[in-house]
C-alpha cells in the first residue's frame, strides 16, 4: 500500500511540513527531511522550486528564488533524494509547478519519483480535468498519488469530481489566498471546514495555507485529518537555519 494511504489510516492527526528543496542551502534537503521525521512529522512536501510560482506568497517565492540561485534543478533534487528511502520512511510528496515537470518529461518525472520512493505529487497549476484526460494513467502506472486542491469557492459538484479522481487526500486551501497570507481562522473558515467535513468524502482532507502555529493547527485538525505548514516553516529556516527544527515541530505538537 502507498505510504500516504497507510499514514492516513492511523488514528492520529497528521502534521505535514512543506519546504523548498535547496533552501536555505543547496544541500540542506536531506538533513531537513531526516530531522523532520525524527521529530515526529508525519508527511513531508518537498517543494521543487519554480521561477514563477503563481499560487505562492512572498515567503515561498523568495525561498524558491534562493533555491534556484543555489543551483537547484529537477535533476539535482532527484540526485539528492536518490537514497532517501534508506533513512526515511514517512510519506514524501513533491510539490511543484507543471512547467519544470513538463520539460523533464512527465513520464520520466514519474518514473524517477517511483524509483526514489516518492509517494505523491501536488501540482497546483495542473487542473484536474487535464490530469484526468492526459496524465492519470501515467501517474497510476508509477503508483503516484496526485493530490488536488479545493478552496472555499469550489462548487460541491467539483469537490465530488475531485474526490472521485483522487486516491490519497484532498488538499483543502483554508481560504481564498496565496500561501503565507493568513493570520488565524475566523468563523467563515470554521464554517467551511465544517461544511466539507459534513460531506463525508471518500478521501480524507488535509488543510493548508494559513497554518502557522499550534492554535491554527488545532483549529484545522478539529475538522480535518491533518494540516500542512509551509511558509511558517520556511520563515523558521530563514531565521534559524536548519539547526532548530526540533523546537519548531514541538511548538506545534
Amino acid at each position: 500500500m502507498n505510504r500516504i494511504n497507510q499514514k492516513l489510516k492511523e488514528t492520529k492527526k497528521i502534521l505535514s511540513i512543506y519546504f523548498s528543496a535547496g533552501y536555505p542551502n543547496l544541500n540542506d534537503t536531506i538533513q531537513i527531511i531526516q530531522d523532520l521525521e525524527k521529530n515526529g512529522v508525519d508527511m513531508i512536501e518537498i517543494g521543487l522550486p519554480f521561477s514563477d510560482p503563481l499560487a505562492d506568497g512572498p515567503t515561498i517565492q523568495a525561498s524558491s528564488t534562493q533555491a534556484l540561485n543555489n543551483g537547484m534543478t529537477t535533476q539535482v533534487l532527484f540526485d539528492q533524494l536518490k537514497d532517501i528511502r534508506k533513512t526515511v520512511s514517512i510519506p514524501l510528496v513533491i510539490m511543484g509547478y507543471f512547467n519544470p515537470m513538463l520539460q523533464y518529461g512527465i513520464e520520466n518525472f514519474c518514473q524517477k519519483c517511483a524509483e526514489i520512493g516518492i509517494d505523491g505529487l501536488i501540482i497546483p497549476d495542473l487542473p484536474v480535468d487535464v490530469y484526468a484526460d492526459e496524465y492519470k494513467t501515467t501517474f497510476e502506472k508509477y503508483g503516484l498519488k496526485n493530490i488536488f486542491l479545493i478552496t472555499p469557492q469550489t462548487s460541491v459538484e467539483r469537490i465530488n469530481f475531485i474526490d472521485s479522481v483522487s486516491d490519497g487526500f484532498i488538499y483543502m486551501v483554508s481560504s481564498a489566498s496565496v500561501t503565507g497570507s493568513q493570520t488565524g481562522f475566523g468563523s467563515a473558515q470554521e464554517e467551511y471546514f465544517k461544511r466539507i467535513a459534513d460531506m463525508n468524502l471518500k478521501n480524507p482532507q488535509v488543510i493548508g495555507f494559513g497554518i502557522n502555529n499550534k492554535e491554527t493547527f488545532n483549529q484545522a485538525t478539529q475538522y480535518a485529518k491533518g494540516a500542512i505548514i509551509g511558509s511558517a516553516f520556511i520563515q523558521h529556516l530563514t531565521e534559524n537555519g536548519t539547526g532548530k527544527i526540533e523546537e519548531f515541530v514541538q511548538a506545534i505538537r
Partner: protein
Amino acid sequence: MKKNTDNQDTSAPSHSGSPETLGGLGIKICGMKYPDNIIEVGTLLPDYMGFIFWEKSARYFDGVIPDLPKSIKKVGVFVNESIEVILAKAQKYNMQAIQLHGHESVEFCQELRDNLNSSIEIIKVFSVDDAFDFEVLKPFETVCDYFLFDTKGKLPGGNGTTFDWKVLEKYPSSKPFFLSGGIGIEEMEAVKEIAKTNLPLYAIDVNSKFEIEPGLKNIELCRNIRRDALQYVSTDNKIKNKIMSYNVNEKGYYGEFGGAFIPEMLYPNVEELRQNYLKITAEPEFQAEFDSLLKEYAGRPTPLYFAKRLSKEYNTKIYLKREDLCHTGAHKINNTIGQILLANRLGKKRIIAETGAGQHGVATATVCALMGLECIVYMGEIDIKRQAPNVARMKMLGAEVRPAMSGSKTLKDATNEAIRDWINNPVDTYYIIGSVVGPHPYPDMVARFQSVISKEIKEQLLEKEGRENPDYVIACVGGGSNAAGTYYHFLEDEDVKIIAVEAAGLGVNSGESAATSALGKVGVIHGSKTLLMQTTDGQITEPYSISAGLDYPGVGPMHANLFATKRAQFISITDDQAMQWGIKLSKMEGLIPAIESAHAFAVLDEMKFKPEDVVVINLSGRGDKDLSTYIDYFKL
C-alpha cells in the same frame, strides 16, 4: 495532401525572398533513439522525426516513443522490410509517415500504399551519385508522396556525406522531395541556393551532423538548423493543403496550445468568465455599447492610410492601419473597453491589471475612470522606474500603481502579482489581461475585442482596392494582441499571408532577445500552454528588447499555433533595425511610431513584394511614450 500527385502546382518559379512561397523549408530530424532526447528535440517542433527500424543501424530504434507535440510527424524508416512488419510498426508507434530506404520496387510501394492507412505518407529514398538516372523515378511518382535523395554510399543512409547537388538540376519531376545525406550547418548555404531554384525542395533531412553520438542529437545544433530552415523559401505551403482552423476550439486550444493551466484557487473566476464571455458579448445591448464607445470614445474606425512615399520606395502598395490614432495612443484601448463592459455586467467592482511599459495600464486606468471603478495596476519595480510618464498618467486617472517586487521585477512578475491579487480577491475583482495570453478564455476574448482591427481593414480595403483581402498582413508580436486583431478575420483565408514580427533585441543569438518563436520551447506560462523562453530545467527566463511592449517571455497560444502550423511566417527584427525605422517612418510619412510598431516596418527590408501586392502593416501605437528612448538612442 497525397491525393494530388498528378496535379501538383509545384512548378511555379520560386525566388529567394519571393512572397510567393512562405512558410520556410520543412525539416526532418532522423535517427532518434533516446526518450529524453526525443522529448527535447520534440520541443523544437521539427516537421518530421525519424525512427530507424533497421537492426544494423547504430540508430536502431526499439523503445517507447514519448508523447510528442501533435504537429510532428513520426516517420518509420525501413530497409527492405516486409509489408507485415511495416504495417505492424506503423500501428504500434502511430506513425504518420513511412520511409523506404532499400531497394523497394514500385509494386512493393503500391502494395504498401493499398494496405496502409491513407493518411500515412510514403517517402521513397533514392541514393544519388553523379551517374544517377532520374528517369527511374517516374513510375514511383504515383505510389509515394515524396522522394528523398540521399548520398550513394556504403550503407543505406547515415553515411554522413553529401552528394553533388548539381545533379539535381536534371530532376525532371514536380514531385516534392526531401534532401538528405550529410547535411550540416555548413551545407545550409548550398541548401539555400537550391531553395531559390524552381526545384520542389520540400524539406531537409538531417541526422549525423547534429549528433553528440549516434542517436543522441545535439539540441543546440538542431535548434539552429530548425531556425535556419524557417528562413528559407520552399514550395511546401502549396503542397500542404491543410484543412484546419486557426481559431480556438471549444476547449480553449489552438492546435495543441492554450488551455487553462491554473491553480484551483483561480478556477471559479476563470470558469465564471468562460461560461459568460460569449453569451454577454453576443448580447445586442453589449455590442451596441461596445461599438458606441469604440466610436465616440476611442475614435474608431481608425483610418487605413495609403503610405504613398513608402509604397513608391518599395514598389508595392503599402497601407498602414492607424491604431496609433486610438485614444491613449495604441490599440490597447479596444480590449480594455470590451473587458470593462464585461466586468460591469458580471457585477465586479474592483479592477486589476498588469502592465509592462504602462500602455495597457494606462488603457485600463482610462476605462476605469470612465466607469468609475477602483483600479489597481501591477507593474514591475524596474518598469516603474523606466516608464515614469505612464506611471504619472495612471495616477492622474485615479489608478493605484503597485510595484511587483518579486522575481525579475518586470512584466512577467507584474502578471504573477496580478494573478495573486485575483486569488486573494476571488469574488468582487475582475482581472483585465492586456494581451492574448493567460488561461482560456482570455486569449480568445482579447483577440475578439481586438478583431475590430481586421474587420475594419476588410471594409476599408474593399472601398479602396475593390477587394477585402490584402496579400499580406504584418504586425509585431510581444504577447500578440495587436497582431491577433490584425490577423483575426484573415486567419482562415489562406490567400492572405500573415507575417509576425518578433523582437530580436541585440540579435537572436545574443542572449539579449525576445524572439520567442526562435528561442522558445513548448511550456506553460501564466496559465497557458504555449511557446516560451525558458531554461532546459523549465524555469522561465527574462527576455530583452529595447521595446518594453515586446519583451514578454511567451507568445499567445494563437501565435504559437500559427508558428507551428506555419500559417504565419515569423521574422525577428533587431533593436537597431526597429530604431532606424522609427526615424525613417517619421521622416517619410510624418508618423512617429511606437518602437513596438517600428519592428513591423523593418519587414519591408527583409522581404520582396510585387508592385500589385497589397501590404497592410499595423501601426499599433504612436511613439510619444518612446521619446526618451529615441532621444537616448539617437542623441537627439
